[in-house]
């Protein structure tokens, strides 16, 4: 058994920032990741990180843009804190060694992003996430933190209402072991792999969110799923919003720059949900290219600008779609991109379980409300990762004696061995593919009661099937099927929460667009969805949105 004061699950930006804060507070800190920290999905974020540091910009406008972007579902007190912290967090990352792109005067360069009033997105070429991830990981090397690589999270261990730690599975040896800690931070990222066209990595399977949910943690606003407007039609690989920030335009199959119809003022730079729905509508109404997609054009920007400012995009198009963006348009469609929902926390990262903290995309504070703005997610990982680390470090010494017991480990082991012994039953990957099919077909950009009800029925059948899940490989060495099985079960449970929340919310707000309820309904639905676990399916309740100064208005770009 391993023991720490603070244990962080997930080693992306949120997890590492939490670990750094807890270590700086003098706690013994362990980070557990199913990958290597540098392979975390934070590294895939291309565009940038928002902070009002420009002379004409202000924290106030950043707050307003975020509140408006959230379609008034974001908690305004949390958003105020978030935007106020932004410049400080960015400067901190610069001091840790991040290599940001610079303006001529030596200050941090900023680019315009969708939904923002000013160029406010600080960047490092088009690999901002990777530059931040490297700098933070390298800085973390200068403090005392133990990293456990290639461990899959299996269970959160509670005794009474007290957190004792987690049980995890070591890919390399097949060992199951307990990690004892009175304070645990879940920073396990998103769960986009419940969809098949997703910009998320294969590892984005909501491990922490599902494990916390089953242990009794509340999930918030899970029905809000952001579709990124520009995913390569091949395999959903992300083309950053930076492409439109730098002047990229969208054209339908008739060669029309259709965004002028949907967002007459800002065209392609409207908020993501607006652009995604516009593309989807064009294709649905027969104005897409044959096969169902539209074009993102960069050609008019010129070879030099494309290759210097959007280098990664060039590589992506050339390597994964066989397309040269300097001379050809890029075929794109919206793809699942970001989960606004997650483990419900306050702005200190605290959940409804004392000792359990969450941060980053796994958490829902809520900053993004019904729709996240580009450049706000990298910022969220760092701002709230840090807060969760500080809070966990302060809490840990108040509850000594946390201990994961051998029987906790045995319970997890019996479950996995049971799946390995089975000779009949579905295997994980085909089951996951079935789940993805349900979500793509019935829980897309536009939703209706009919489709969502059907999805719930199909998910219930899938859940029954999943009880006979079988691990088709007896080996104890790097047996990915154990991982696949754990992840698939996580995704099925979370999909059910997404659909239940979406069916119940009879309005359209931000990324949640109901064809049968096309209007935002502030009188009845200006509230957060809270889901708690029951074996037969999620129990839904509702919580008020925190308001400070901004009255809801219609969102027009």
């Amino acid at each position: 058994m391993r023991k720490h004061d603070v244990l962080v699950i997930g080693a992306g930006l949120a997890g590492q920032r939490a670990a750094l804060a807890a270590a700086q507070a003098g706690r013994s800190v362990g980070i557990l990741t199913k990958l290597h920290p540098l392979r975390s999905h934070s590294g895939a974020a291309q565009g940038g990180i928002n902070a009002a540091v420009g002379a004409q910009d202000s924290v106030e406008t950043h707050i307003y843009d975020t509140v408006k972007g959230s379609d008034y579902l974001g908690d305004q007190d949390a958003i105020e804190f978030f935007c106020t912290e932004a410049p400080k967090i960015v400067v901190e990352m610069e001091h840790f060694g991040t290599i940001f792109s610079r303006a001529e005067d030596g200050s941090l360069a900023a680019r315009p992003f969708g939904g923002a009033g000013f160029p406010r997105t600080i960047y490092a070429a088009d690999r901002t996430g990777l530059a931040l991830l490297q700098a933070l990981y390298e800085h973390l090397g200068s403090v005392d933190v133990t990293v456990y690589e290639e461990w899959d999270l299996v269970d959160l261990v509670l005794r009474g209402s007290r957190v004792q730690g987690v049980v995890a599975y070591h890919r390399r040896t097949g060992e199951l072991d307990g990690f004892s800690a009175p304070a645990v931070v879940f920073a396990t990222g998103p769960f986009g792999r419940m969809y098949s066209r997703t910009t998320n990595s294969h590892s984005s399977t909501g491990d922490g969110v599902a494990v916390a949910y089953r242990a009794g943690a509340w999930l918030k606003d899970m029905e809000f799923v952001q579709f990124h407007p520009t995913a390569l039609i091949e395999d959903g690989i992300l083309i950053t919003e930076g492409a439109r920030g730098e002047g990229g335009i969208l054209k339908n199959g008739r060669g029309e720059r259709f965004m002028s119809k949907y967002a007459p003022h800002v065209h392609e730079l409207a908020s993501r949900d607006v652009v995604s729905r516009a593309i989807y509508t064009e294709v649905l109404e027969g104005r897409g290219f044959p096969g169902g997609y539209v074009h993102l054009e960069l050609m008019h920007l010129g070879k030099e600008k494309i290759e210097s400012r959007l280098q990664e995009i060039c590589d992506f198009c050339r390597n994964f779609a066989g397309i040269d963006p300097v001379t050809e348009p890029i075929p794109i469609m919206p793809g699942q991109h970001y989960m606004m929902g997650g483990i419900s926390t306050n702005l200190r990262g605290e959940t409804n379980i004392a000792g359990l903290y969450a941060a980053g995309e796994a958490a829902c504070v809520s900053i993004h409300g019904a729709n996240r703005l580009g450049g706000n997610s990298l910022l969220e990982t760092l701002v709230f990762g840090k807060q969760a680390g500080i809070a966990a470090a302060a809490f840990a010494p108040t509850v000594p004696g946390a201990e994961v017991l051998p029987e906790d480990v045995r319970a997890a082991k019996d479950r996995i061995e049971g799946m390995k012994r089975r000779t009949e039953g579905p295997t994980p990957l085909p089951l996951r593919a079935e789940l993805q099919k349900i979500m793509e077909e019935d829980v897309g950009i536009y939703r209706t009661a009919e489709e969502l009800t059907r999805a719930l029925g199909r998910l219930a059948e899938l859940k029954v099937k999943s009880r006979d899940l079988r691990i088709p490989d007896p080996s104890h060495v790097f047996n990915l099927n154990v991982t696949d099985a754990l992840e698939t079960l996580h995704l099925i449970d979370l999909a059910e929460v997404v659909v239940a929340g979406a069916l119940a919310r009879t309005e359209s707000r931000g990324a949640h667009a109901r064809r049968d309820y096309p209007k935002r309904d502030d009188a009845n639905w200006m509230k957060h969805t809270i889901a708690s676990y029951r074996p037969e399916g999620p129990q839904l309740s509702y919580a008020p949105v925190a308001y400070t100064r901004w009255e809801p208005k219609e969102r027009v770009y």
Partner: protein
Amino acid sequence: MPTGELLTIPFDVYRYDPADGSTPRYARYTLELAPHTPVLTALLRIRSEIDPSLALRYSCRSAICGSCAMLVNSKSRLACQTQVGPEFAEHGRIVIDPMSNQPVIRDLVVDQSPFWKEYERIVPHLILDPMHPMPEGRPTSMSPAQVARFEETPRCIACGSCYSACPAVAADPAFPGPMALAKLYRFVVDPRDTASQDRLMRIQPGGLWTCLRCHLCTSSCPKDVRPSERIRDLKEMAIAAQGATERGSRHAVGFKDNIAERGLLNESKLVRQTDGIVGMIGQIPQGLRMLRRKPEILRAPHAIEGQDEVQRIYELLEDAGEDGT
């Protein structure tokens, strides 16, 4: 949408599981694939449709996480970034092996700890002088020109392809390898770091000069980091900072002087410059063997025809700026 005919492609995939006591072997899987299909997609299809027991690392499938480095037809590549069509056209099949220079855990999964250890050894974080703290509450000022010297370095995704391809790593386990040295370059040129000289001094013995300049790291790098060019930069900086103090750097400087003088190498002089008079004694057996096969090395070297042009090249290079303009 790019379409095209499907190709029937045989994959020979290295399989080894220490848990079942069998010896390594190749398994043949045949798939129907469009030419632009990434090798990773093919391997994932093998996992989901044919044999789920195949072990490999993968995550982002967009060449940014660095998980899926392996040998594709004997070359270190990212599986997600390598298309099956050209590989099949060139080799008639696709052979997949785990990376080299690192022990195999299972199938295509290797133990990368030697690689990570070298990375940790170069102290990959900013070293600051407590007397000169970072500016309070604001970012360090850095001109675009200063950033240009190293803003490409975060392209490295630490996949280990260069480490796998490097013959110096294979020959000398003490050699840090291309990735660690490219990372060292990133810290040496960072204006915020205050230990540049110390870093250069510490890396020299056994580190920098073991590089064979074969450039296999650069040709195998999936992100165009060009580690061999960064190693060259480090060598130049080391000599500029400390003079030719190492065997490797003395050899490099001696080589340059030889050519400047007569346009060709004077072996006995080069050995003296590299190893010194005493060091030459150790090279006597080698010298005698050379003398037997190539007696002309005893003759006093003469300048080659057109030596004046060689001189002009040197002069032009001396006048040129650091960036070669």
